[in-house]
């Protein structure tokens, strides 16, 4: 069985976000440090949550990217992170 904790690492990413007049935000695209960028197809839900895999907390966006569901965390200090897969 895959050990989720050791298989993931916290990676801070650049995020393009629309901040709406009602105070909510809609992340559109995440960009990794190496330049790879991914369009966010859909935001399924937002809630405050802790990341059990890589540690830390924040507003957790459950997003769909290229048909796959993943979490994007807003630490509310200007920094966003994802639970990225560890390179083998």
């Amino acid at each position, binding site marked *: 069985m895959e050990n989720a*904790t050791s298989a993931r690492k916290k990676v801070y990413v650049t995020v393009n976000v629309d901040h709406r007049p009602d105070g909510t935000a809609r992340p559109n695209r995440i960009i990794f440090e190496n330049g790879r960028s991914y369009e966010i197809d859909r935001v399924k839900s937002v*809630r*405050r*949550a*802790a*990341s*059990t*895999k*890589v*540690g*830390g*907390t924040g507003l957790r966006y459950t997003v769909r990217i290229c048909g796959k569901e993943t979490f994007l965390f807003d630490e509310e200090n200007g920094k966003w992170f994802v639970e990225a897969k560890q390179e083998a």
Partner: protein
Amino acid sequence: MADRTILHVDMNSFYASVEMMLNPALRGKAVAVCGSTEERHGIVLAKSELAKKAGVKTGMVNWEAQRCCPGLIVVPPQYEQYLKYSKLAKEIYCRYTNLVEPYGMDECWADVSFSRTMGNGLEIAEKIRQATKDELGLTVSIGISFTKTFAKLGSDMKKPDAITTIARDEYKDKVWPLPASDILYCGPATTAKLSKYGIHTIGELAKTDPAFLKRLLGVNGLSLWSYANGLDASRVMPQDYTSPIKSIGHGITCVADLENEEEVYKVILELSQDVGHRLCVHQLAATGVQLWVRANDLSGEQFQCRLPYKTQVSMEIANAGFELFKRRYRWTTNVRAVTIRAINLVPQSQPEQLSLYSDYALHDRRGQLQLAIEDIRRRFGKMAIYNAILMGDKKMPEDGRDLVRMPGMMYQ
């Protein structure tokens, strides 16, 4: 009248849990958060469950903890993170009631007697426990009872991540067999006094004649008797309540011993900047100054004096404190920690009797200078202007550890 429903929420091994939540690699290991030996705070501040099982205790010196638990992972404290999670946890409790009273950084009382629409005490406690775990990745122990003291006892009974209820018809069975030292405000000295008279448990304390306890322990004896009998009527402080200010002080443990008067003056002057600022914010003025000095051998001394006139001026407070120090402190050992406090506060606008022997012109000029400094700091930041003597090493740590509000007396 129906019984109150009071929760006491205690965040388990708070500092250590935050560290493990932020760094999952620490999970399931013996971890201790320890102050820096270099900065002379080298003691265990919190430990994980595993470290606790190995015998590590809060307050142990670092080397002692490592000897008692080989392989212990020691991490330095991150006070900003603890403040952040303490605040977020409090926000969770405030979803259910505005009667939320912090008791240190990791404990809170919450009175949910009037929150029936959100569930009974047990249901609300369960929601809080679950939300803290899901949203912050931290566990809490919650005690539910009809008094603050019993709720606090309850939160200590089952740990971690558990809820304990102590209802009116259960407290004699659940609380009375516990040692008297478990009850709030029964410290080692009081426990020793009680045990001299054969009072070892809370039940024995409850059955003792209150008049005897008053003779033995003063008013605290009566409080302890009422706590033990479930008669503690103290209320939970509203979340936005600020207690009346009786004094304004600021203290620090220095990163190295202060070896001469000049070094002591720098620390007193730096601490006084904050005291003067807070006096201005609250529109209060000091008519007395108190200085507390902890020597290198950990002995403490406190001195105080009256001021010739009321003041908000940092420089005048610092000078009065330094005069006290020069007059009263015997340099048997070097100085480790200093606290300066403005006391006998009066409203800044209150008229005062002038004295023939005081230099009011100088006092007024200093007052104007203080106001100008306050204005510059408000506009450009605290470090925009400061005394030249405060440049360079002041032997003071530079973080926000002094911002934590420590537990005080029970709110009545």
